[in-house]
Structures are given as C-alpha cells and as structure tokens.
C-alpha cells in the first residue's frame, strides 16, 4: 500500500531524514518510534506533502508521488495530528470543521456524512454545533479522527494521536483506531515516542534516531525485548520505569 525507498529530507542545511525505507502492506499498521528530533514525524509530513525539500521514492498504491499532492491523494491519505488543541479551528463549530473537507472534495450529502462521522467516533449529535473549546482533549481528538475519516480514506497517518491525552482516554482512542483498521480495512503509519503504544497498535516497528532507522522489529520481537541496536535497547529499558542502575547505563546519542 505504501512503499518508501531511500527517503532523504532537509530543513535548510539540516539533513533530517537519511535513507529511510518503509513498506506497509494493505491493512497493515507500521509504527515509527524515536525521541524528539529523530525525524519520525518528518516521515509522515513528507508523505502528506508538508515538507518541500526531499528526495527518494514514495509509492502510494503503486503510484509514485511527485513534488505536489492532488485532491485524489488526500481522498486516499489523511493525517491525524498530535495536538487536538492546535489542529481544530478555534472559531469553527464541529459541524463546519467536518463539513469543510466534504465540500472541498465535492462529495455532497454533507449533512448525513457529518452525522455518520460523529457517530463513528462515538460522539452524539449534541456535539455537532459546539466549538472545540467546549470539548475535552479526548473529544477533540475524536473530532480530528472524524475529520480524517469523513473522506473515507484508505490510509491514516497518525502523528502521536494520544500523547496529549490521559491514559484512560488514550485507551479509548486506541481502541477506536484499532476498530477502524479492522472494520474499514485501513492502513496505518503511526508515530509515537511511546514504545508500548506502538507495540500495542502496530505489526511492524522501526526505531529511528537522528533521521535514520536504526532497527526494525515485529511486535512480538518488541514484546520479548529482542532488540539488537544499543539505542533501541536503551529505549526499551527506559520504558520500564525508573531504575537508578538502568539510568547509569544510558549513553547520550547526540
């Protein structure tokens, strides 16, 4: 469904992605893990057309992407951003936020689509004419997911979709995303700094550091901690909570 070969990207003189290769089968779920500045979000932003200076090959549905993205691309691929406080227009009602993509793509029947999209993400109709500030963080993230789903895409790019949420709300949103993958046959690329979230959601995982994929693992390899690269091992240990001795073994990867 998605194939990326030798992807390189630059921000001015900074070489932020170095030879990134990713392959995601249809209905697959691929996880990118890493710390701040590792380039994990940049991979998603490059696919979706938010990064200008890149080289390499990105194939979506066996079609190679050029420098710009057209409307058919966005019918197929939608992105959900990390911060539900920043990604919804503060002065648009939920109704308007959800109607806009429908109108842009000229799908018609927007009324029924909005009602359905809200229902899919478990929000009742009373939310429809509210503003984002009247919603909690978890409810806003549901709206952001509804906005992506309303175009009936086949691929969702998820950039830390739950890291701004409380753990109990995170569980609800993750379950919702798992259900959509099952029921709608979606394909995911998910970015997170949280190894456990990615291990739970994804089949294949890549660990990134300084723009490079340092290691690939399957969910079961990750579950057993079968990781080779010292950087991935360090991340794995760090996910286990505070242990003074473990901290002393940390090496800086700057």
């Amino acid at each position, binding site marked *: 469904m998605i194939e990326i070969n030798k992807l390189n990207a630059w921000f001015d003189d900074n070489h932020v992605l170095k030879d990134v290769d990713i392959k995601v089968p249809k209905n697959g779920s691929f996880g990118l893990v890493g*710390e*701040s500045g590792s380039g994990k979000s940049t991979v998603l932003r490059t696919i979706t057309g938010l990064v200008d200076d890149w080289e390499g090959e990105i194939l979506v549905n066996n079609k190679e992407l050029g420098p710009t993205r057209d409307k058919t691309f966005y019918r197929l691929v939608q992105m959900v951003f990390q911060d539900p406080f920043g990604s919804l227009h503060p002065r648009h009602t939920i109704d308007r936020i959800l109607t806009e993509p429908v109108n842009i793509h000229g799908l018609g029947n927007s009324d029924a689509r909005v009602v359905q999209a809200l229902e899919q993400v478990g929000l009742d109709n009373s939310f429809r004419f509210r503003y984002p500030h009247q919603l909690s*963080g978890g409810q806003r993230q549901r709206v952001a997911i509804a906005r992506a789903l309303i175009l009936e895409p086949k691929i969702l790019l998820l950039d830390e979709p739950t890291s701004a949420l*409380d*753990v*109990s709300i*995170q*569980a*609800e949103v*993750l*379950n919702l995303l*798992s*259900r959509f993958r099952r029921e709608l046959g979606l394909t995911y690329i998910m970015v997170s*700094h*949280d*190894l*456990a*979230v990615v*291990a*739970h*959601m994804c089949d294949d995982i890549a660990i990134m550091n300084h723009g490079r994929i340092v290691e690939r693992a399957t*969910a*079961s390899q*990750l*579950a*057993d*901690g079968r990781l080779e690269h010292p950087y991935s091992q*360090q*991340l794995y240990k*760090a*996910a286990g*909570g*505070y*242990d*003074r001795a*473990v*901290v*002393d073994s*940390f090496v800086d990867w700057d």
Partner: protein
Amino acid sequence: MSNETLLSVKNLEVTFNTPKGDVHAVRGVSFNLGRERLGIVGESGSGKSQTGRAILGLTAANGKITADQMTFHDVDLANLTPKQWRKVRGARISMIMQDPKYSLNPVMTIGDQIIEAYREHHKVNAKEARHRAIDMLDAVKIRDPERVFNSYPHEVSGGMGQRVMIAMMLIPDPELIIADEPTSALDVTVQLQVMAILDDLVRDRGMALIFISHDLQLVSSFCDRVLVMYQGHVVEEIKASALHEAKHPYTKGLLNCLPKMDGDHSDLPILEREASWAEG
C-alpha cells in the same frame, strides 16, 4: 528515613469562584509527610497540581483555601502574610514546574537567575554566589557549567532547561521540594536521567519530595508512597512497592488501561468511572 513529620495537611479544600459557579478542585485531602518521597498521581482535573500549589500558597486569586490544619514544622501555612511567605517559599519549600520554557526568565542568563535565587535567601557577595551557582550546575550534571551559566534559556535543550530549574530550586537548600510533572515534557531517556539527578540530590541532602504526575507507573518506581487522586479526593494511598496490590477500582483501572508490550493487539480495558468514587 525518620518518622518526623515535616508537613501535615488535614482536610484541605480548594474552591475556585468562576462565572459558572464554584469549582471544587480539592476536596478534603489529608496527609502527613516525613523526609520521604510522596507521589501524587491522577488524571487531568483530579486536583493533584492544586494540592501542590495550595501548600505553597500559589493558588490563583479566585481560589479559596480552607484546611483544618496545614503546617510545615511549626509554621501555619494557612495564615501567612506575603512577607512571611517569602521566608518559606524558595528557602524552605520550593517547587519545580513542568515546562522549563515557561518557568525560566527568557531575557536573563541562566547564571544570573540561579544567583538571584541564591542571594534572595543567602547574604553572600557576587563572587561567592557565582561560585555556588557553577557548583550547582555541576551538581545537576551539566557538562560545561561555565557555558550554560552564560547562556539564555532558549539556547539550551528541554532536558538541560529542567536541570537548570532543579539547580535553581535546590540551591537555597530547601527542606521540601514539590515537583509538579517535572519531566513530562521530556523524552523518556532524558526524563529518567533528570529523575536520577533529582533522586541523588534529594537523597544526599535529606530533603522531602512531593512528586506530582499523571504517570502512575513512573511515580511508583520512584517514590516511597503514592496518593491516587480522583476528582479532588484521595481515593487510595499505597506503598509504591505494593502498587500491584492496589485495591481501589480507579487505581486498578488506570493500571489496566495502559498498553503493554506483550504483543497483544486486542482492545484495551476501558476505565468505567463510578459516581461513588467522587464522593470520597
């Protein structure tokens, strides 16, 4: 750890007067704190931060604090004048906030800010203060303390900024540190490194620590005792090492809904909230 009580809080209530009516943020929280590490855990809106802020008299102006007792040694924290507060805040109790980006002064060098914190409470000359500040930066494991001393906050990373905050808060040698989500804005490995620094300093100097966080597992691996808060109430107090024996359904629910690295992709258990939890 001795059993001497540093801080005693009984039936603390914090209420905010808002245009939409009173918001009861903290409802009857009581605990005693010795020279130990106490974790306060809860989700957004549970009142964990407001509990910490009330102890330091930092509640916003529209908030009202009442407590049957709120004493630090023999100081009655409930009735201090602003002048008396200045002798307590920073000097005897200090607070580390979440985001160094917002809690450091952006137009003052890091060194000057640490010196300011130190000289506020200790009468020393500029040379001595500078010497102390650099020692303190060294103590929080900053590799090039001279350079950081002369830097502005925007010139250092998040992890470095938080070490600077710790340096600034610890330099007056307080007896009690309240750390409110001190590492939540940081990457996991940096987070643990910063916690290790805090761990060592608190241990070496025999300080008491209140560690406020949303992360139950992290807190229990770091603290001696944990209070779990839900809607302003303490629903459970547990020894950190006995977290798996937690009894309250909220605490158990919080632990269960975490995704685990066991390769199991089935749905996560959802936390079902019960109205009775909010009644204390």
